[in-house]
């Protein structure tokens, strides 16, 4: 077992559980502490990266969609690169939404539970149980909205996770034991195929980041150094856009070949 990706409907719980798993397993913790490094590398304000992980673009928060996607792409690229190392616990970086089809990455969802969650919020914020319940429901709705906007996945959909633990029923100590015990599952052991899937994802993310810095409407797939970029452009812009993409993507380390597919329609998903 090499990667645990831990997420929760309550940030504090997610952090605590991840830290305890790290302590027990002796793994490396990958969390929002890396945002400072990511920010320095891409010359972005670290607070903006942190903000991008919780808000969606709007006029109100002066975060244009292209910039938001670029920030997320920078985080994603660095996280995926770090996940190439063994024995990591990842938390707080939305990795459960973009680490897809990597069989040695176990996605764990810890539910704060109605009782524990509401009590915790009421105590922390000094509000009534009723208000705490409302606050939690609105947080959950925000998480759902964010994950759908950012990665087109509903993070509150529990079928997306390999292991789901409800803290209303399982004590946090037992939850940590359950997670660390799952490290023994053969199904989640590293294999050549899963490492290749991860390195393909990491390369696609690097190219995505390089392109999103100056353009929007990009989707990237990578395999063994070959990269396919899907985008859209009008007939007039098409040639120039292909040239720019080939130049930018081709300059990313690890890319040996670039193919660009351009759609003419300006609406809908690129796929």
């Amino acid at each position, binding site marked *: 077992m090499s990667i645990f990706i831990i997420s929760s409907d309550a940030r504090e719980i997610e952090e605590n559980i991840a830290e305890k798993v790290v302590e027990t397993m002796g793994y490396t913790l990958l969390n929002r502490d890396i945002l400072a490094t990511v920010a320095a590398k891409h010359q972005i304000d670290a607070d903006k990266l942190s903000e991008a992980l919780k808000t969606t673009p709007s006029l109100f928060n002066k975060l244009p969609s292209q910039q938001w996607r670029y920030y997320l792409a920078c985080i994603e690229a660095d996280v995926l690169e770090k996940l190439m190392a063994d024995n990591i616990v990842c938390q707080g970086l939305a990795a459960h939404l973009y680490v897809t089809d990597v069989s040695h990455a176990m996605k764990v969802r810890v539910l704060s539970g109605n009782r524990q969650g509401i009590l915790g919020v009421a105590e922390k914020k000094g509000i009534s149980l009723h208000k705490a319940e409302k606050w939690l429901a609105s947080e959950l709705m925000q998480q759902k909205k964010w994950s759908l906007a950012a990665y087109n996945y509903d993070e509150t959909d529990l079928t997306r996770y390999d292991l789901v633990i409800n803290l209303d029923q399982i004590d946090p100590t037992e939850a940590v034991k359950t997670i660390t015990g799952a490290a023994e599952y053969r*199904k*989640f052991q590293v294999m050549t*195929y899963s490492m290749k899937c991860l390195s393909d994802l990491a390369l696609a993310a690097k190219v995505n980041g390089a392109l999103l810095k100056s353009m929007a409407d990009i989707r990237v797939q990578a395999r063994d150094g070959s990269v396919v970029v899907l985008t859209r452009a009008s007939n007039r812009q098409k040639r120039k856009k292909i040239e720019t993409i080939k130049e930018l993507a081709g300059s990313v380390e690890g890319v040996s070949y670039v193919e660009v597919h351009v759609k003419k329609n300006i609406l809908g998903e690129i796929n």
Partner: protein
Amino acid sequence: MTKPLEVLLLDDEPIVGRRLKPALDKIGCRVEVFQSPKEAVARIDEKEFDIVVTDIRMEEMDGLQVLDHVQKTWPRTKVIMITGYAKVDLAREAMGKGVFDFIAKPFKPDDLRRIIFRAAEALGSPIDSSLLNEEPVAQ
């Protein structure tokens, strides 16, 4: 001189055996190539191989059935799966059933050789890793 690693290579596409056999011969493996799972299984009944490399999707019998047969007959044998239809669920199923490694086609002969090196180490018969070198991709 150390005893060569005995490898059985099973893939219903003849080109896979043709491409991979010389690559494994080069690192001192003794390779027997099969296209029919039934013939391969009959051979496994006769002889203990160190390593079985098998495709997953085949007509008469799939790779997971071959794995099951190998595990029952020769528990020490390491099984490596190769497939052109790799998916995360299939990879996890194969790992859960005890394959040594799982690799998606197309791959370079060196990718398979790296796995063979690790399998040889796990079997207590390491091979000289300087024998690795890059070659074109096997389809």
